[in-house]
């Protein structure tokens, strides 16, 4: 199955979002690299759907619902381990050198991360119903994921605050760093809380998986990671274009104001 993922077959595909394939290099947020990435994620998702939904067998005790596993765990891994780490790194670099690039990367990664976090929650609950008999259990992982979701919604809310853009970016960067610490604190405390109170619940994640199930899981991981990368690159580029647009509007505004005031006279002190 994984042979489908060989990069050669994808590289020859026509660019996915080429707006007039020759002249303007960037008529959209797509470029050669991202169209390759985009095609790879589409193929990976297609393969995941085929293998995960059609080919692989149902699990002995869980039945068909084991198939949610192939998207639930990968999206959790992508947002909790990749997305918010990128936000953390971007925030640290931004605070060090005020690089707009890293500020926007941090924001893009957090936004896509929150989307994947929502997937994790939704699939986790859908999975809980047939396995545990209820949509919500106070499973440590599920609970801490829910709290983390609100945590990063707050981060995104700060990024949208209506205030001076530089001050806002700096606040967001501080929040991006502290939030990552919170992520760990929440995870740790909730786990401790549940383990102290009652023994570990029977974890369906520990069930025996045959080869095709395992392959589906890894395919899910690949598909989610590729899709995440594609989305983050595009989200960043949208933000970058917005930044460029604001910068050029600002230049126009400065030029207009300068012109309206007339030629500036050099000011030597008059009196004194």
């Amino acid at each position: 199955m994984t042979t489908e993922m060989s990069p050669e077959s994808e590289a020859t595909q026509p660019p996915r979002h080429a707006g007039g394939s020759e002249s303007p290099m960037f008529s959209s947020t797509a470029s050669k690299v991202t169209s390759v990435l985009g095609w790879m994620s589409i193929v990976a998702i297609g393969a995941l759907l085929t293998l995960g939904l059609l080919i692989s067998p149902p699990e002995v005790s869980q039945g068909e619902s084991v198939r949610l596993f192939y998207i639930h765990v990968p999206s959790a891994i992508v947002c909790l381990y990749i997305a918010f780490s990128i936000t953390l790194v971007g925030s640290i670099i931004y605070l060090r050198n005020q690089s707009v690039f890293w500020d926007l990367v941090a924001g893009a990664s957090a936004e896509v991360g929150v989307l994947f976090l929502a997937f994790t929650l939704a699939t986790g609950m859908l999975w809980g119903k047939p396995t545990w008999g209820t949509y919500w259990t106070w499973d440590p992982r599920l609970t801490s994921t829910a709290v983390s979701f609100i945590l990063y919604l707050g981060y995104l809310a700060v990024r949208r605050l209506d205030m001076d853009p530089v001050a806002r970016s700096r606040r967001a960067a501080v929040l991006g760093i502290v939030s990552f610490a919170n992520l760990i604190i929440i995870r740790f405390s909730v786990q401790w809380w549940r383990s102290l109170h009652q023994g570990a619940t029977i974890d369906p994640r520990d069930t025996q998986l045959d080869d095709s199930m395992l392959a589906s899981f890894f395919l899910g991981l690949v598909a989610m990671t590729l899709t995440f990368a594609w989305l983050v690159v595009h989200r960043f580029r949208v933000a970058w274009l917005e930044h460029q647009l604001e910068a050029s509007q600002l230049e126009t505004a400065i030029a207009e104001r300068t012109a309206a005031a007339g030629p500036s006279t050099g000011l030597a002190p008059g009196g004194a």
Partner: protein
Amino acid sequence: MLGVKWPISFIAVSDPVVRLRGVVSLIGRFPALAGTDLVVEQGEVVLLQGPNGAGKSTLLRLCAGMAPIHTGHGEAFGFDLTTRAGQREVRRRVGLLGHATSLYDDLTVEENVRFWSSAAAIGRGRDGTSSSGGASGSDAARADEAMTRLGVGERLRSVKVARLSAGQRRRAAIAVVVARRPLLWLLDEPHAGLDADGRDLIDELVRQAAEQGATAIVASHELDRVDALATRVLSVVGGQVSA
């Protein structure tokens, strides 16, 4: 922390208090100052006039180290206004009277003036960063003196700020600035909301400050009033300064 290097032609006999060159300063995404040049020497009383929205307030805040410089160069007292460290040094030496009075409603006038003046005293340290007017006594003495000069009587001192009239509130805010004993006075429409008596008081304060070697930049629409004081009148239009 001696800021930017300037071409020879820019260096005056003594270092100016404020020197701005081609400064663009943004309020959010609006260029409040667009290519502003300004040189103010020690002891000057500069009057800024100009229409609303011309950038006078931003210019004063900039000189106080309270507004960002997007492009261009700026220094005050030889400190670079583009760096945070430079801004911090500048703030210790200025008194800015803005539109907000920055008083706590639930404290009395005296408590307010004391709080702000003792804050300034801690920031000031030992290196003469304030003008040496009068005996530089304790914080409480400074606050007392400032309130007396502003005509804030004993009775008014123990009144909560929330119960003051707009004009009395303004006087209390000016007392806070006076108690700081700044080297550079930055007054944004100081006459607004004051009675005739209060307006005369402002003029008197500026005159005394200048006599003691401090510098003042005053934005005001009361031309005839400040004209008598000002050593120079500048007009601010469209984010730029001209003579």
